[in-house]
């Protein structure tokens, strides 16, 4: 007798959707720019999970190659983003996104 159902693509896609929405929620909910960066990472990872699941059911490497390139872009994004954040903190002494409003017209 089977206690738990088999793991289908639906389970992985649901998990991916939940993680993506958590990241989106955090991006809108928090004010600290560093936490917002972390939420972007969470969303990228949710997409990676869905891509790996698709790659698994098709028995194809292309999805996993795409995950590699997403990781590359995420690493570059974090390096530049954190440098910008350091710069902002040095000049404005805050990472609160509500106070970093000098760009509004």
């Amino acid at each position: 007798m089977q206690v738990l159902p088999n793991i289908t693509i639906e389970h992985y896609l649901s998990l991916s959707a939940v993680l993506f929405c958590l990241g989106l929620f955090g991006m809108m909910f928090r004010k600290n720019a560093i936490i917002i960066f972390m939420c972007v990472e969470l969303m990228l990872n949710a997409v990676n999970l869905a891509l790996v699941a698709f790659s698994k059911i098709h028995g194809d490497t292309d999805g996993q190659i795409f995950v590699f390139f997403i990781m590359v872009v995420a690493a570059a994004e974090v390096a530049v983003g954190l440098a910008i954040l350091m710069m902002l903190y040095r000049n404005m002494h805050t990472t609160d996104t509500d106070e970093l409003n000098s760009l509004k017209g």
Partner: protein
Amino acid sequence: MLTEYAFWLLSFIAVFSGMAVIISKNPVYSVLYLIMTFFSIAGHYFLMNAQFLAAVHIIVYAGAIMVLFLYVIMMLNLNNIETEKRHNIIKLLAVSAAGLLLLVLSGAVQKADEIAVSGQVGAAGMVENLGIALYRNYLLPFELASVLFLAAMVGAVYLSKKNLNETQSA
């Protein structure tokens, strides 16, 4: 059987620590919870027989990116408990927007075909196959990625220089 239990355990850990990232007041705790999420996602990659990707994921995310986050938080001395207050209307909008997106996505996922993931055998995630695909079919994007890294590196170094105006005039 074991993979089903592992899937639910890892999913629970991932969602729980994902929520903890958003909820915790101290940014250092957020980073640690995010590392926990990344480890559980790496466990999912192992379950899906993508061993190389799991190893790379742990090395790149837990090893490099999160260390960078911790460095910046410690350097800027942000590890104090912040008392941030959002307007209630923004909180409501955030909850409703994320909830509606989740509703739409889960509605779309319900239509997915019942394809078992754990039952399939495939060597797609092995180093050999990935290497062949990466260096044969995706050589140009691979090289372009290195250019992107170089640009990001130069940009990060340039941005974090102390006083741009003084160094330019000197």
